[in-house]
């Protein structure tokens, strides 16, 4: 979508627009709409396969012999995930602050909040990396069972989206440092923000459906 993002910039500068809205912004919303179906499919798959794995480990239940050769404890680590969830929520706050800073033309805070958002995103990814590795140690690989496959692919794809977002944010930060982002760039920050918040709301859904609900 970044593709679309800066593309029409020059066009918008002199082309008539029927709605008075910005092309990029309409584009990103259309993209977000389509992402809804993307994540709906992933989440459906996770829920459909929930409780259908024929070998452990399982998300919420421990698995002891004879069911499992070696005793396996419930995989999901709620405290840690709650932390990362919180971090991601806060990143959304930073994002809106970054946006309004750019609108105000406040060079200092635009940099600070952009950096803050990117950092929060990176932290979230850190948590996820930790989570994944510890799962692997506890015996849950992407190839282990239906739960493993559907869990890692769902959360992995979300993680990939966060990564893309972080890169996008860093690019903006970079531009900000080079020539500074002003009100004229507000729209570009806005679409990045919309994407970022969407990734956040997707996690809100995942956190409940995957982690909290048995």
């Amino acid at each position, binding site marked *: *979508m*970044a*593709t*679309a*993002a*800066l*593309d*029409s*910039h*020059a*066009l918008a*500068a*002199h*082309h*008539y*627009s*029927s*709605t008075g*809205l910005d*092309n990029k912004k*309409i*584009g990103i919303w*259309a*993209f977000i*709409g*389509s*992402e809804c*179906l*993307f994540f709906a*499919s*992933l989440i459906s*798959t996770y829920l*459909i*396969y929930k409780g*259908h*794995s*024929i070998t452990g480990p399982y998300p919420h239940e421990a698995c002891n012999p004879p069911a499992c050769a070696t005793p396996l404890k419930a995989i999901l680590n709620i405290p840690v995930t709650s932390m990362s969830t919180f971090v991601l929520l806060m990143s959304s706050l930073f994002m809106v602050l970054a946006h309004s800073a750019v609108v105000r033309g406040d060079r200092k805070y635009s940099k600070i909040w952009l950096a803050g958002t990117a950092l929060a995103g990176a932290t979230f990814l850190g948590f996820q990396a930790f989570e994944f590795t510890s799962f692997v140690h506890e015996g849950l690989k*992407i*190839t282990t*069972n*239906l739960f*493993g*496959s*559907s869990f890692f*692919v769902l959360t992995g794809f979300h993680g990939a989206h966060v990564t893309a977002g972080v890169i996008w944010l860093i690019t903006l930060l970079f531009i900000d440092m080079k020539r500074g982002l002003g009100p004229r760039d507000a729209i570009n920050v806005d679409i990045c923000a919309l994407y970022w918040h969407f990734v956040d709301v997707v996690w809100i859904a995942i956190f409940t459906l995957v982690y909290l609900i048995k």
Partner: protein
Amino acid sequence: MATTVAPPRHAPAPPKYERGVWSWLATVDHKKIGQLYLYSALGFFLIGGIEALIIRAQLYGPDGRLVSAETYNMLFTMHGTTMIFMVVMPLSAAFFNYLVPLQVGARDVAFPRLNAFSYWVFISGSLFMNVSWFIHAAPNGGWFGYAPLTTRAYSPGVNIDFWLIGLQILGVSSLAAGFNFIVTIVNMRAPGMHLMRMPIFTWAAFITQFLIVLAFPIITVAVTFLMLDRFFGTNFYTVAAGADPLLWQHLFWLFGHPEVYILILPAFGLVSEVLPTFSRKPLFGYPVMVYSIILIAFLGFGVWAHHMFAVGMGPIADSIFSITTMLIAIPTGVKIFNWLGTMWGGSLRFTTAMLFAIGLVGLFTIGGISGIMHSSVPADLQQTDSYFIVAHFHYVLFGGSMMGLFAGIYYYFPKITGRMLSEELGKAHFWITFVGMNLTFFPMHFLGLHGMPRRISSYNANQGWDLDNHIATIGAFILAFGTLFFVVNMIRSRRSGAIAGNDPWGAPSIEWSLPSPPPDYNYATLPQITSRYPLWDRKAPHLTAEVPHSARGDKQSTIRVAGSAVATAEYGTDLQDDLAVVSFPSAHELGIPMPTPTIKPLLASLGLSVAFSGLIYREKELELIAKMQPATHHVSIAIMLLGGAIFVTALYNWLLTPLEPEH
């Protein structure tokens, strides 16, 4: 026009992009890209058709031995995949590209470079999938590749890999284009063009884009699962791990049914343009036509499981999907009847375009009705996976989509090339196609009812299928014969067809106010739209006076046309020298900034395809791993990284250079 002038931040494109092959490789002009789509898709139509001819030859008589069972399975898989993803979708895309900006009165699509990207991704994906033929490893899992047959366990070898990777690449193309056209139609309509004044084809295109951006993510997920299973050992469809094969079926058809409306709606749109023009009468019940498109699209998401009536979903689910499926007949019926209403009381002129349009009305109805027969679950238990289904979907796909698209080609060829297609050859094409099409596909109803399963590479004697198969095969070759007329017509008329002039048909929509072919900037000044049928308002105000929306005190539309005035001749015959006299000012003279041609989208798409195709080598490595030897080489990873690098570099390069030289 922008007044703030910044010094150009990048050198203008090299002059070589102005003409020759480079002008095509680097183009960002929606009209050029539209033509690229058009000719590529027609090429694939010949390929898919030849595959079909081999299929028919094999099935001509009992115990056919023309090709082996293995080859046959590749043939029908590739035939289906080609016709759907490389023929009908790109043909529709050709019209989206060429027409939508013209019809909404814009200079180009919202994101011209993204548009070029879409095309190059499409072509590389299609070529990638067809390359598999050269190593006789073409996809062989059927066009809906049911798991677990398509998992490594039952389909070792690269056939299915080619299919999956190809589909994934094609999906990227469709999605990118989808967003592009949504934005274009929402935001680039000329002043005064309310939604309810949009040409009906633009409406069809608009809704189709939503179907695309909402349906393709689902197939992307389904295909990604299967890729991960095949390449990295996940369990989404792994029988041994307790996977449920119905997961693939539900995800696929949740995409697959909206997909079939993606295939038909653009054709409906084109026909809704052709019928009024040649009836000299506005589209009957325009608003209802619009609503029915929307309703069809929406219902299209609620009927997918009608492809799965035999899998045992239980009586409740069966009943629900049966009924939702039947509901779709209602909005579709409205369209058929409104088309009849459009012709009723008109003064019909039977040009080739008109013939194909009428062909759609007549033939699609047959396919639609057999569709309703499928929707009755118990009846479908006899019909499903038999030739009765094959009959159904060829009536809707060939009798519907292809007929509509041919109508569109005959109708818009003059606008695209400035020259008329030969009506004589065209009529021959239509009538031979019409006869061949019914000879080919009507007997398939009987084959199905008489118990012939689909996808069988040969059948025994004395099954009562010989006669119908004879007829079907003969019909197919008649179709091929008819298609040759079309091929010849296209090639000849491009060079020596009669000069078209702006408006050879006396059509109502604004694209016909432009010279043929239109200048690269389309409209010298944006048209002011005051009604649904601006050109008719100009030419016959007394007729359109009663058009409700132009009776709202709007002033007559003011469409300024570069070069000659609007030509209203019927055949362009009295305009022989028109092309010569039309010398319109260049964008530069008019001070219209045009997007700079650039090769970057092409490079980006190449990078993307390379990255994907690296996966093919993964299969070899898996073999080694299977042989308990550690994969000695990691070609796949290497290739994927390389491709990724190309993609990212090209993309950043493209994003950070402004679309146009600043002025």
